[in-house]
Every structure is written in C-alpha cells, then in structure tokens.
C-alpha cells in the first residue's frame, strides 16, 4: 500500500514539476509585461476617437518616445493642429500654437481629461513601473478572445495612483494586456480597457486598436488606434526638449 502511494506521489511530481518550475509569479508577469511594452525609441501615428453623449470626435496624432520617460505627442487634426504634449521625467508640458502658450501641468491639473477623452494627462505620465505602485496577485488563467491569459489583480500601494484596483488579463505568450478593469477601492468598476486589434513589431505583439469605456458615464468611450508604428528609429535627442516644443 505504502509502495503504491509512493509511486503515485512520484508520478504526480514528475508531471507537475515542469509546470511548477516554469510557472511565473505575478511579479514576473508584470515585469515582462512592462518590459515588452517599452522600446528604446518609437515613432507612431494614429487617432483618438472620443464618443460621448454629444457625439463623436476624432483627433489625429503623431508621437515620438524614448525609453520609459520621454515622449512627445503632436496633434495633426484640424481642430487641434500643432498642439503638443511633452512628457519628460516627472513633468508634462502642453503647447498651444494659437496662443503660443506653454503650460506646465502638475499636481491636480494632471487629472484633467486629454481632449475630452477618457484618458487623463496623468495616464500619459504614468511610468511603466507597475510594481512600484501596485501589489500584484495572480488569480489564475482565463481564456479571453481565444487567448490564454493570466488574470492578475493589482491593488494600489499608495493613494497617488488613479485606480486603487486593476484587474488585468495578460496574454501568457505575448504578455499583451488584452483587457483591464479599473475600479475604486470599494470595487466599483470605473473603466474597462479592451484591445480590439493587434500588430506585430519584431517579436512583440502590440495593441493596434484599443477601446476605453467609462462605466460610470453612459455612451462614453475612447477608441485609440495606432496607424503606423516604427520601433527603435533614430531620434534626435532635442525632440524631447522645451525648445523643440515651441517651434
């Protein structure tokens, strides 16, 4: 009897060991997710389509980024042509060409919505160091859009992040976040982000079109589309300077 039990235990161990050895922890998944969404430099063009009870508005943009901290967005659609948003380490600047005015956004001002969308300026300044701000817990595996995903619950460590609780669905292969639910500390669902389309850049899978829906406001959603994307292009360092912002 005891021999049979020993054999059974050995059998279970043989089958379970590889998955136990290679199973990723929540922190490792987050690290990988952050790593794969960061490039040395990027250049992209795309659009932000905002829908609310007043209708739909589309803004076109082109953007440059460098590492985790520097990025520049320039709007090219008629209504916002020439408006720029520069993000450098810890700072965010807005440039309005009509007024020739440069505004530094800080503190509570960062919480304002960007062009009336469901994305705030603060969402843009958020650095890709999720684990600094959130405690991650792996809930298990789930299939989402026919992709096997790790389901993680992120609970804010500080009060300085917008969403106290995030639930994310991370692709087990590409580490792309297919879906994210943003909630208050009491668990009230505020926003849902869902990736609708993806594209490949080298070996990485990135979102081509994602939809952010405000669950508190009826008929309010933002569709973000990337039309062109270039990974690691050679960028002039002066792109991310204030001098460049005002020309």
């Amino acid at each position, binding site marked *: 009897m005891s021999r049979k039990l020993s054999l059974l235990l050995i059998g279970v161990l043989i089958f379970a060991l590889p998955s136990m050895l290679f199973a990723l922890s929540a922190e490792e998944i987050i690290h990988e997710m952050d790593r794969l969404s960061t490039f040395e430099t990027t250049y992209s063009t795309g659009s932000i389509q905002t829908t609310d*009870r007043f209708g739909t508005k589309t803004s076109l943009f082109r953007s440059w980024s460098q590492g985790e901290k520097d990025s520049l967005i320039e709007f090219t659609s008629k209504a916002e042509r020439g408006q720029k948003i520069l993000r450098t380490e810890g700072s965010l600047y807005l440039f309005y060409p009509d007024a020739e005015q440069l505004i530094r956004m800080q*503190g*509570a*001002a960062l*919480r304002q919505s960007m062009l009336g969308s469901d994305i705030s300026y*603060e969402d843009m300044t958020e650095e890709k160091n999720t684990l600094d701000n959130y405690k991650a817990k792996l809930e298990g595996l789930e299939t989402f859009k026919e992709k096997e995903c790790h389901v993680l619950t992120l609970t*804010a460590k*500080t*009060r*300085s*992040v*917008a*969403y*106290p609780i995030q639930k994310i669905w991370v692709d087990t292969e590409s580490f792309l976040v297919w879906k994210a639910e*943003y909630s*208050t*500390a*009491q668990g*009230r669902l*505020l926003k849902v982000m869902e990736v609708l389309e993806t594209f490949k850049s080298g070996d990485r899978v990135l979102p081509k079109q994602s939809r952010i829906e405000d669950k*508190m*406001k*009826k008929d309010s959603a933002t569709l973000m589309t990337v039309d062109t994307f270039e990974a690691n292009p050679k960028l002039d360092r002066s792109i991310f300077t204030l001098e460049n912002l005002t020309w």
Partner: protein
Amino acid sequence: MKFIFTLAMKNLARYKRRTVITAIAIALGLMMYVIVDSLLLGIEVESERNLLWYETSSVRIHTKEYWPDRLLYPLEEGIEHPQQVIDILKQEGYTATERTMFKADMILYSDDFGEDGNLSVLVTAIDPDTDNQVFHFEDTLIEGRLLNKGEKEGIVMGSWLAEDIGAKIGYWVTLLTRGNGGFFEAIDVQVVGIVNCPNPNVNRTLIMMDKDSAGTVLGMEGSVTEIDILLPNRADVDTEVIKIQTALDASGLNNLEAQSWREMAKDYLAIAEAKRGGTGIILFLVFIIAAVGISNTMLMAMYERTRELGMMRAMGMKDNHIRLAFIFEAGGIGLLGALAGIVLGALGNIFLVEVGINYGSLLRDMDFGYRVQNIIRGTWSIKSFVIAFVSGIALSMIVSLIPIRRALKMDIPACLRHQ
C-alpha cells in the same frame, strides 16, 4: 435784509399755485434721484452681503500651497490639524467653521432623472454643527432638511441647480471624484434638502455634504481645505486678517495664511468697481434730468415775473436787493421741493428696503456679476438724502440767477412791456 426776506416769503405765499407746481416738479426730480441711488446702492450692499454669507465668509484660512492651485481644489494641500486652528481662533474670540471643497462629476441616473447624464460640480463638505454659525444657509431651506452631522449619504442642493437637472428630494446621484492623492472614488448620495440661496452663483452650483463623511471617502485623514471665519458687520477686515495671521504664526502654524474676502473675491470687486463707474453715470444722468426739470420750472417761473421786476426797479428798488429777493424766493421754492422730495423719496424707499423689486425672471439665466438673485432691495443712504436736499435748494437759487440777470439788463420800460 429782513424786508427783502419778508418780501420773498410773501411772494411765495402770493403765488401759491405756481409755488406748489414748481415745488412738486423739484420734489419729483429729487425723489427719482433718491430712489435710483437707493436701488443702485442696495444692489451693491446686498451683493456684498450675499457674497460673505454664502460664498467667501469674511476671512478664510488655507495653506500657502493651496492658494496658487485653488481653482483645481487640491485636496493634498489641506490643513492637517483644523481643530487646533479652530481652538486658536476661539481663544481670539472668532467664530469659525471647517470646510472641504472638491470637484466631482455628478452622475445622474435614468431611474430618477428620466435619462442618464453627468455634469461637473463643486462639492462643499461642511460641518453641519458649525457651518451655520458662519454661513447662513439655515434660513434658505425650501424643501427637505439640512444635513446632519456624520450623515454619510445625504446632500443638499441649490434650488436652481436642482431645477436645471430636475432633482427632487430622495433622488440618488453618484459623485465621481479624486481623493487625497489622486485615487478615483465614487460616492452614492441622496438629495435630502434643497436650499434657495440668495447668491445666484452659489444657487446655480451648490452641493453640500457632511465634511466627516466626505473626509473618510476622500482619505483626508482629518484635514480640511479651508477654515472660514465670520467677522462682525463693522469689523475692519484687513486689521482682523493681520490679527489672525499673527495668532497663527505665534502658534507655529506658519504654513497657513489668512485671507480677507476682498482678496478672495478680487474678480467680483473688479466687476463691482467697473459697474460703480456705470452706476455713477446713471446717477449723474438722473441728477441732470432732475436738474433740468428744476431749472426749466424755475426759469419759467422767473421769466413770467419780468414785469413785476421792472415795476420794482421803476419804484426805485436797488438791483442787488431785487436780485436777492428773487434768489430767496427761488430758494424757498427749492426748500419746499427738496423737503417734499426727500419725504416722497423716503416713502418710496421704505417700500424698496422692506419689499424690493422682484427681477427673478430677468436674473434667472443671467449672470451680471452681482450676487443678487431675485429681489433687488434699496438701502438707506443719508448721503443721498443730503445731496438731494442741498442740490434742490442750491439749483433753484442758481438757476433763478439767469432770468433775473437778463431782466436786470433790460430797460425798465422794456421790462414793463414784457409778455
């Protein structure tokens, strides 16, 4: 001189009808001046009172970091130990209350409102026990009830805001806001009271909830964004601000600053100052209209006396004496008119001060800077009565000089033939 004065007074009594008609013309002109001045001044006084009673209080304390970002209502820049500040103020003899102001998106639901929607609002979290010692919302409740201390789910709304969104007592809304630090928070609250605040800017936007409940949800940890102080009516605000600041500094609360309502309402004062120029012009025009009326009546009254004047000259009366007699007579008419004018003005003003004129339908959708909502009331201004009285007499005397001067330049026969 006594003879001249007696002659002037006898003339007044002799031409009773003319004296009465001229005096009435003067009285109506002056009454108009007194009433317009009372209304214009009344708007300013009421507007200032409504600003202090419902919006700014007399003096406000906040942290030095709060003021530059005040339009963003940063909860992070709150006063950490408000009770300590309140105790210091109490020792100095001031009445004060704590408040926390925060921006929120108010979500409306179709269940109550008929359709879903949202609007941006400013929420005032108050201490229900002490707020009414500084502000005056207690007297403005028109429906439901005021907030109770520690009430978690109740809000009180301004009647114009409630009207605009179709809110009624018992309706539920959600306030979506950012807590201290920046985290999102949603608060479900029910409308428990509606107030009709006389300050239109407040009545259009007011949402009040309990400070402690808001503080818990927003992670304020006992801090508040402001402490408001009420000063007696005649207190010198600037002196009191210095006194309060000295008391705060002496207690080691150097990061706090006290500001007078004048500092907080600079925009309003700039508008009021600009309007004061406009009201000055209106008042001047009213005065001119009154003056023209008085002049015209006096001129006519004097011109028709040219023959009498010629007769006096023919009888050997000196020009200076004639001039003086007519000036005294004009002054007498002016005195009667001015007395009647201020009496009529005072009677009209009693109505304006006690009842006022209801401009509600006109002011409902109009923001003309002043914090006056429906009824515009007059005020008592001794200055305006004195101006009316003195100018009524002086104008009559000055204006009478013109026809007298002209008549005295004429030949005596020409005066006697004058029609």
